């Protein structure tokens, strides 16, 4: 840990900005009820109020405060994406490391299964499954985690295979170490850098994926505040964007607010991932 803090001091500006943004999002998500001026689905006033106090970012068609919904959205959308990514990593990395280390038919069987799953485009697969299960948060998490774990499986298997060619693995095997020791103590510490970077990338992917599904009306269901659905709900307004007055301009920009929130977070995570990848490639030299 001190190691990472040490690296942070030498981090480029882009990575620092990325980290700062992530921290802000995290604070918003964690303390949403304390920060948001209104409740998540509370009707705060008249519909389509302009960006003036007390509705700093206006209100939506039902008169709910947009800023409050954006803040709660951080909690819902980001939280869901985080849970999904963690689950995908747990499944994918565990199976990937296991397949690479055990090898033989276990590896072949798992890899074939994953090949087939990956042969179906994930958005299409998700749509198919959600048709059957119906759109609920649990279904969303499980489906996307399962689909995403295939990519994590591929990566962690490839990384582990690279590490397994190292002589220190052979030394551990010849010493008589068991599978658990080899995976936990010999492989995992050396796979951490690429896996951390992959976690960031996967998170972005999952996050965009959930937002996309919500945007299509198949993700989180109302009245839960969620950025993707917020874009969907206000999408039509963009045609009325008119920069003549403050009121008309802000009215038309409504769908861009949640979309920007999504975009900024993914850019921030990507900036940090770029830096981590750079660090881990530098550490190899």
């Amino acid at each position, binding site marked *: 840990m001190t190691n990472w803090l040490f690296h942070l001091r030498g981090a480029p500006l882009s990575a620092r900005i990325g980290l700062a943004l992530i921290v802000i999002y995290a604070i918003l998500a964690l303390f949403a009820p304390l920060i948001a001026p209104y409740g998540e689905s509370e009707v705060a006033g008249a519909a389509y109020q302009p960006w003036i106090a007390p509705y700093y970012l206006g209100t939506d068609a039902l008169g709910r405060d947009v800023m409050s919904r954006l803040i709660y959205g951080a909690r819902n959308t980001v939280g869901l994406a985080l849970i999904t990514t963690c689950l995908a990593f747990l499944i994918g990395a565990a199976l990937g490391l296991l397949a690479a280390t055990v090898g033989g038919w276990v590896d072949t069987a798992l890899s074939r299964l994953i090949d087939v799953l990956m*042969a179906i485009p994930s958005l299409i*697969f998700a*749509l*198919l499954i959600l048709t059957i299960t119906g759109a609920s948060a649990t279904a969303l998490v499980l489906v996307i985690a399962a689909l995403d774990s295939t990519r994590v499986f591929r990566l962690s298997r490839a990384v582990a295979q690279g590490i397994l060619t190292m002589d220190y693995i052979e030394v551990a095997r010849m010493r008589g170490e068991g599978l658990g020791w080899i995976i936990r103590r010999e492989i995992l510490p050396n796979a951490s850098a690429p896996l951390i970077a992959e976690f960031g990338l996967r998170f972005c992917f999952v996050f965009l994926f959930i937002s996309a599904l919500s945007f*299509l009306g198949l993700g989180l269901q109302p009245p839960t505040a969620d950025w993707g659905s917020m874009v969907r709900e206000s999408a039509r307004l963009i045609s009325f*964007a008119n*920069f003549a007055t403050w009121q008309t301009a802000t009215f038309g920009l409504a769908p861009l607010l949640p979309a920007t929130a999504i975009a900024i977070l993914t850019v921030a995570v*990507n900036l940090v991932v770029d830096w981590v990848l750079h660090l881990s490639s530098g550490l190899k030299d």
Partner: protein
Amino acid sequence: MALKLSPIPKLVLKRLAIGVLTLIVVSAVIFWAVELLPGSIATEVLGQSATPETIAAFNAQFGLNDPPLWRYVTWLGNAVQGDFGQSLVTRRPITDLIGDRAFNTFFLAAYAALIAVPMSILLGLIAALYRGSLLDRWISSSTLAVISFPEFFVAYILILIFAVQLGWFPSLAGVTPAMSLGERLYVSFLPALTMVLIVTAHMMRMTRAAIVNLLALPYIEMAELKGMKRWWVIAIHALPNAVAPIVTVVALNLAYLIVGVVLVEVVFVYPGLGQLLVDSVAKRDMPVVQAACLIFAATYILLNLVADVIGILSNPRLLHPR
């Protein structure tokens, strides 16, 4: 040197066989997934109020009384011949529903690909050749930003600028079969541009990475040390060997185009397969969802297949075995 048969036909056949097998497995997954549905399709569609008589009639009409394996085989057999059965909701043949829409979707994807592929290869090449320059850094950071944006964000920004503010293009891409090619190209310009932007960013970054890897190889340095001009080294030594990696990148992104089209179609209300799929999912119209999924998945698998085959064909080690 004993003459040996080139291993290429064998490898290509093997790859084709794997492709066909994957298609069959995927079609089975698409078909059987619906079978996992709790309760029957009939109650799902007809609702709680359905009487046993209406359910029986429904089941008879859609052949749901046959054993599942038989239904799968007939479904797949008919699908291969272009017959996807009947929609549960509209009760019309799915082929009628899909025909125009599939054409529209492939038209849009092709439109975007024709612009995106040459542009991204060129940009990727330039970024790789002038690696570390200001131009490279600018291209890299702007593509990183575009990759991070959700598709609908890019789409709405474009709508805001080109449709709402400038009024150059329509924000709704409602193409009709009666339109001429020119009209079609004009009306679907914004959805195509959205896809171009997103796909170019991905494709360019991948092309750049592939070329950078290639330029670091010793035989490129060797060509430079033989006093060859820069353009000659790139055109004669690097590019022929870059075919396989670039084709892989292109195929991957074309596959993405076909699939990513779903969101873009919804934003621009473009009458394509993707929009039909999303609508059918919302209405839980299983046969239509299955048909659309099958078409998307098959396209995706075929594109990857083509990329792999080209990769095999462009490998000198395989073309000229020892």
